[in-house]
């Protein structure tokens, strides 16, 4: 009877467990909510003994192939007693009595329930479920069968995620979930720069294991079970920050059965994608400089340019890029997991490591990450389950102090090749050139110090569920999550010298940089807690005719942060410890950050009639600490309806090729408190006051009253808005799901709109300046987003060959409904500036009608700029005289294109398998956006230094330095000094290029070795794979660089952002 000890309770044991149950629940409640829950003691009954055990055995097979099915879940209905079939499809379990029903479920097969009816042997054949009608999808606070979904939800399983080896989890999602957009803006190790959103809406809410959390991109894909995105009113049960949609990540759990160890290890390298390069030899550079001088009518500054071959130390030619940047960077990643369990306790434990190196040859830029996760579920007593998930990561990013990657790119692009590496060509006297730093020093941590960013994150979730006896399907659940995160930064600035050489004295003249040596340490702590207490009800009546599900949930979130900084200077630069620093001028600062708190009551009711008519009603009564007590609470309802037309007899009987056809409609309102921080409803004085701005510079709001001590200022916060409240997002969605010919064609189509009202902004009406204060932010603006998503899939299985193809395309556009702006003073300005009812992504500029081909063409063109035609040459940009007034000026601007946010985003996910071989390919692309060149991307010789190689392809004379020779056309205008020539740089399609691209985003080929071979090494499974990311890119002609690199798209970054990487990996996956 040993096996059954868990279900046989002595009175004392029973009492103890009851006590434990009550204590736990009370503890949980009192910790999570203010009061203990008095009524919960009624959980005391329901622990029923039953000594009549029956041993049941059987085999599960595939109904069509007749092959044994390993891994099938076999469970006694209504209990957690169960087993899993072994490699031969066999199972054994103990049934409490002869009248139970037993469920057989397996992914990709239709679940079967069989009454035991006294038998001890059950052989079951499962029907494959190509239409995946039984697929379960994670939704807000629960799971739902895919067929019963009434909201716009997309999901994916773990296999799709692990087909990509990348440091960033979001890279594994690209192109696979309709409506999810992931743009790789840059790939700097440890920065996680991807731009991710749902339906183009901005930062989404990410919920990991039921709790809103940060840093999802750092999770190891091998730890994830599934990912869902909620795109419409189905997100509204999360409220508060869910107006941009919700991503739900569920991590892996263990499964009952024999323990498994899985080792996954890969190594590979990264390589930058299309990225601009600077000229690497002096002669090319100096020809441009001489040409620019000739254009300006000046003598050539380097008539002896031909001598700069680099052979003679007095005439250097240095390839700075080649000296500083490596072309391939190693990356490796490995993880090991243990999983398994008994019927009562299951576990999944995983640890992983990732190491990446950056582009500097010094390797001073690198990143290391350790992930860990443990997920344990225990069935404590019948009906009572507990789950503890502990996940987290430790990571370290090292960056040389000399320059950030942004500063480095800016500098290495413009570093003149005719400057020597060393003063007097003698190491280690790094030459002090025109740039702030010699590029070789700026990437060297040993010389300049480092910036080290460490993060330690711990995310814990504890939950208990209890099936309330006597009420079938009623369950109470308590959840408490405690997330702790530390950010520890060490910024070590090390003094060093660069040199000039004095030929007369023979001395090296140092320029001190980074002086004095300084160490700054930042320590930040964030704590988030989340508590949920919920009642779930799920039942069916009249033999499945009516299915009812209900949820009532209390949800409380709270966040707090704290931090401080300490700083000391050093006379000895070798000991980078705070205690070794000088006490003179040491500084500390600290800031307590109060984050927000939310409290909500959530309710949801699902009703299904014969799985044909489906309805869901939900509400959220939300409170936020960001608003004053009077306007803090909001009630936000949502409704969605589904009609499974395929269940109607007129389809079922007549059109049998339709396996599933469903129409969905949803509509909901959500309150969102984003942007409402800073206690805007509380008047008072901010202390310590920050800086104030006068004439474009910042000045401190503090004062020295005695010549010795600084007194921080206290500044009025300005006028408060006592009525500040939620903005609302009203989301509507209409969708169709169709599965035809048992999955040969699968289609989902959604049309959506989201209207946001009450967005915070400042009133356009202005108070007179003499009033001395300005309007606070109010809930005034509104906008409207609309779009659609289409996803079409096709899959087919043969005996040892299967493939599936799924493509998706999404389109989204947002326009202002109301944008608070001062009224325009005339009709032209009204058209030009007022953007009410206008798309938000309009880019204004000048029409581009080509480049001038000849001087005659210049002379007869409309007046192009304030200088008339005086300074123009063939090759210069010709603008459209849009208003036909004979001259080009601001009045000729019109909407020329869209900004850098793509409106259309598409993906194609293809998988094929033959025996042990499997191939996965994802193509992804986007269009309806533009990429704008700025600063060094828009002109040669910035600050009179170097140029990007693109500007060699320019209009020039046959002999570039003899202006009497004929013109040779090129892509860019003739060289001018210092960023080129203003009139050539106006915003126009010449610089703001429409982008469309398609990219082979990822490809993976893997081979699972035959069992016979694997058994020889006593393993269960061995899979070897090779994969690549960002492999090939097809882009529209004229797109200058990597189409995703957002550095080249915004004036703020001017292309200096760290490049986008492609990666190539080899790995193996071994399970014991």
């Amino acid at each position, binding site marked *: 009877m040993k096996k059954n000890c868990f279900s046989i309770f002595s009175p004392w044991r029973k009492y103890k467990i009851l006590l434990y149950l009550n204590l736990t629940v009370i503890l949980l409640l009192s910790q999570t909510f*203010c009061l203990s829950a008095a009524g919960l003691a009624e959980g005391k009954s329901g622990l029923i003994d039953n000594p009549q055990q029956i041993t049941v055995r059987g085999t599960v097979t595939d109904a069509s192939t007749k092959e044994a099915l390993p891994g099938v879940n076999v469970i006694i209905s209504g209990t957690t007693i169960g087993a899993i079939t072994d490699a031969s499809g066999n199972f054994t379990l103990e049934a409490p009595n002869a009248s139970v029903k037993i469920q057989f479920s397996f992914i990709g097969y239709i679940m079967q329930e069989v009454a035991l009816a006294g038998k001890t042997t059950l052989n079951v054949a499962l029907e494959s479920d190509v239409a995946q009608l039984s697929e379960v999808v994670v939704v807000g606070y629960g799971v739902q069968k895919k067929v019963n979904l009434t909201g716009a939800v997309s999901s994916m399983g773990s296999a799709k995620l692990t087909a990509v080896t990348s440091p960033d989890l979001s890279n594994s999602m690209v192109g696979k979930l309709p409506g999810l957009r992931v743009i790789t803006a840059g790939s700097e190790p440890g920065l996680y720069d991807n731009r991710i959103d749902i339906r183009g809406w901005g930062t989404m809410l990410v919920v990991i294991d039921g709790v809103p959390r940060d840093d999802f991109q750092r999770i190891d894909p091998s730890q994830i079970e599934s990912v869902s995105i909620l795109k419409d009113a189905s997100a509204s049960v999360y409220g508060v920050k869910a107006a941009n949609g919700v991503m739900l990540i569920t991590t892996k759990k263990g499964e009952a059965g024999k323990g498994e160890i899985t080792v996954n290890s890969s190594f590979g390298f990264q390589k930058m994608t299309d990225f601009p390069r600077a000229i690497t030899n002096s002669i090319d550079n100096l020809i441009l400089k001489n040409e620019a001088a000739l254009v300006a009518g000046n003598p050539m500054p380097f008539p002896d340019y031909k001598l700069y071959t680099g052979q003679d130390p007095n005439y250097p030619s240095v390839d700075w890029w080649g000296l500083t940047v490596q072309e391939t960077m190693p990356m490796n990643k490995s993880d090991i997991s243990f999983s398994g369990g008994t019927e009562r306790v299951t576990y999944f434990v995983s640890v992983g490591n990732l190491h990446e190196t950056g582009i500097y040859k010094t390797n001073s830029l690198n990143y290391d990450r350790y992930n860990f996760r443990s997920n344990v579920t225990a069935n404590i007593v019948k009906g009572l389950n507990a789950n503890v998930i502990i996940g987290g990561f430790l990571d370290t990013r090292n960056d040389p102090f000399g320059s950030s990657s942004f500063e480095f790119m800016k500098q290495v692009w413009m570093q003149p090749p005719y400057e020597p590496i060393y003063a007097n060509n003698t190491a280690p006297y790094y030459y002090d050139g025109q740039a702030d730093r010699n590029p070789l020093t700026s990437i060297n941590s040993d010389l300049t110090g480092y910036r080290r960013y460490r993060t330690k994150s711990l995310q814990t979730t504890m939950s208990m569920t209890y099936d309330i006896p006597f009420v079938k399907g009623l369950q109470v659940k308590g959840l408490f999550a405690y997330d702790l995160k530390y950010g520890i930064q060490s910024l070590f600035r090390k003094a060093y010298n660069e040199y000039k050489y004095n030929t007369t004295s023979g001395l090296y003249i140092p320029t001190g940089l980074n002086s004095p040596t300084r160490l700054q340490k930042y320590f930040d702590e964030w704590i988030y807690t989340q508590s949920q207490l919920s009642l779930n009800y799920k039942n069916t009546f009249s033999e499945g005719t009516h299915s009812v599900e209900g949820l009532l949930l209390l949800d409380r979130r709270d966040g707090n942060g704290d931090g401080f900084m300490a700083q000391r200077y050093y006379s000895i630069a070798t000991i980078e410890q705070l205690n070794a620093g000088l006490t003179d001028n040491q500084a500390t600062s600290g800031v307590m950050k109060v984050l927000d708190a939310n409290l909500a009551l959530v309710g949801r009711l699902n009703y299904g009639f014969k799985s044909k008519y489906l309805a869901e009603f939900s509400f959220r009564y939300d409170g936020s600490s960001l608003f004053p007590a009077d306007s803090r609470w909001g009630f936000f309802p949502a409704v969605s309806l589904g009609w499974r037309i395929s269940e109607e007899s007129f389809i079922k009987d007549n059109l049998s090729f339709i396996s599933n056809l469903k129409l969905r409609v949803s509509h909901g309102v959500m309150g969102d408190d984003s942007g409402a921080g*800073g206690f805007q409803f509380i008047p008072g*004085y901010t202390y310590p006051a920050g800086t104030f701005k006068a*004439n474009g510079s910042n000045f401190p709001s503090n004062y020295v009253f005695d010549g010795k001590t600084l*007194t921080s200022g206290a500044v009025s916060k300005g006028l408060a808005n006592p009525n500040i409240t939620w903005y609302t997002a009203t989301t509507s969605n209409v969708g169709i799901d169709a599965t035809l010919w048992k999955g040969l064609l699968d289609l989902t189509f959604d049309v959506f709109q989201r209207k946001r009202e009450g967005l915070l902004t400042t009133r356009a009406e202005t108070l007179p300046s003499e*009033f001395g204060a300005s309007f606070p932010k109010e809930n005034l603006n509104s906008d409207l987003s609309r779009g659609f998503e289409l996803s079409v899939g096709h899959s087919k299985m043969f005996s040892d060959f299967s493939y599936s193809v799924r493509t998706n395309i999404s389109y989204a556009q947002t326009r202002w409904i109301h944008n608070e702006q001062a009224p325009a003073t005339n009709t032209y300005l009204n058209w030009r500036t007022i953007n009410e009812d206008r798309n938000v992504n309009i880019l204004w500029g000048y029409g581009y009608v080509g480049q001038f081909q000849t001087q005659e063409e210049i002379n007869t063109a409309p007046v192009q700029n304030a200088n008339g035609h005086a300074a123009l040459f063939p090759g210069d940009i010709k603008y459209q005289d849009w208003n036909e007034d004979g001259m080009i000026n601001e009045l000729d601007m019109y909407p020329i294109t869209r900004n850098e946010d793509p409106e259309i985003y598409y993906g194609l996910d293809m998988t094929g398998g033959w025996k042990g071989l499997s191939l996965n390919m994802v193509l992804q692309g986007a269009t309806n956006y533009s990429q704008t060149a700025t600063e060094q991307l828009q002109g040669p010789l910035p600050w009179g230094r170097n140029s990007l190689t693109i500007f060699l392809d320019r209009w020039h004379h046959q002999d570039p330095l003899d202006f009497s020779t004929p013109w040779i056309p090129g892509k860019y205008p003739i060289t001018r000094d210092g960023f080129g020539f203003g009139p050539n740089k106006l915003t126009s399609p010449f610089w703001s290029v429409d982008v469309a691209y398609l990219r082979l985003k990822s490809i993976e080929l893997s081979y699972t070795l035959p069992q016979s071979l694997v058994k020889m090494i006593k393993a269960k499974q061995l899979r070897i794979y090779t994969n690549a990311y960002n492999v090939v890119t097809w882009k529209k002609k004229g797109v200058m660089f990597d189409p995703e690199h957002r550095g080249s798209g915004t004036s703020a970054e001017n292309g200096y952002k760290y490049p986008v990487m492609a990666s190539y990996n080899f790995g193996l996956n071994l399970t014991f």
Partner: protein
Amino acid sequence: MLLVWPGCTKFLDKTPVDVITETAILSDQAAFTAHMAYLYSQIPFENFSRWIWLDYYTDQMVNCTQDANTSEEYSFDSWKLSYTFIRALNNMIEKMPTATAFTTEAAKTQALGELKFMRAYVYFTLAQRYGGVPLVTEVSPIAKPAELYQARDKASDVYKFIETEMDEAINTMSTDNNVYRFNKWSGLAFKSRAMLHAAAIATYDQVQLDGIIGIPQTEAKHYWESARDAAETLIQSGPYELYDLNTDKVKNYHSLFFDETSANKERIFVDAFLYPIKGHAFDQRTEPFSKRSGEGYGGRFDPTFDMVEQYEYVDNRNGALKIQNPDNTYIQYANPADLFTGKDPRFFASVIFPGAVWLGSPLVIYGNVIQGGVEGGGTGADGLAQPESSATGFYLTKWADPAPPRPVMGGSSDVDFMTIRYSEVLLNYAEAQLELLNEPEARIYINMIRVRAGLPELAGPVTMDDYRKERNIELAYEGRHYWDLKRWRTFDAVIYNTDTYALWPVWNKDLNVYIFRKQKLPSDKYTRTFTSKLYYGKLEGGVIAANPLLIENPGY
């Protein structure tokens, strides 16, 4: 579950940790002081904190990145900031009767005096820039914008307000000589400055826009007397002396700006800096080219050739530089510094020049080189004519720290700025006396300044030009000259299509000697014109749109 609801909602009442209530400001001494710290930081003084570069809009100096248009529409966007400041002051002045954050009644009286003086002073800076402005002396509750419109008051009313309020504050403030905050003495000093400005406006300017700008000439005498009386009270009863602690006159004048001890009795009001928690960038901005740190900058304050010639020789009132022989050939100097031998000690204490020793080594400045008898291009380690080096051949060294934390960076300097010093008060007094036709009395004080500087006394009668030249030199680059040119209405005569000249050293490498040329700087950048409309600034962008009752100044 609903049972737990009501008790829970309280936890949404989060309290901001960085916000002090007004009650605390008025009742807690430290909180009140914190608010005072903010208020003091808002006073629009032209010092290191805000507008030290004022004088490079004048003939005194230029910036190496100069753009000829920079003098256009000078108002420095002070309107909105000033009225935000005034609202805070009005609020405090209104609430002072209920304030309890003081241990003594005297402290409370002093605080109210400081608040009132601040308000009077900010109105003075507004009147200097714009002429008459709306006098707002109460905190209005929020209302429809149209109900809050207020027109500009007449300049003479604004100055009357300034005078009355300053007097009221001076009469109640302490006689303790705390140089970091307003007291009776600094009140008198600033009052002499404000009244001198009003008097000059009444004397030299014209009334326009029905009195919104300009003061009737009939009021001139009153303001000259008011300026004289304020200065006189301070001279007679105040605790100040001209700084004269070093026998070496160069060292003395230079130290005047660094001596931050109580021995320096010339300090009346000081804006203090503390490295590294509160620093400024003056050294970084003025640094000679070869002494710059990796952060760059430098060469931003370059005294002009003409300004250098304004400095007298100790034995000759004509300060012209001796660069040519009588036969128009250039004088050759083995040591370039010899060109300046015999200049006013204040020159050596304020300007560094080719050959001057600074931070241990001489500055190497030349713009051309003669080699093998042929003159060609070439640049010394400290310039000329390269980016971020001096444009004129001179760098500023007044306030340049002889021992700053090296290398200097933005925010690494902590030399205090004397916002007003005794010397200015003496000059204010002398000017008022000259204007009131009491030359002998004026001469005494002008000569005090000259003797302290190391120059011989002037024999009488001292002319207005003598006085103005002395003031120009004594207070050079301190931001005063800019306002002097405005109030005397001489700006458009001094800066009218005015070229800027550099001292252009040419190094004869063959002979290792220097010759010097006076060279015009490129006119597209350095030839400037001050048009008469610029005497009053254009109202800051947006303020007229926000208040239609405001009238723009003439010419804009």
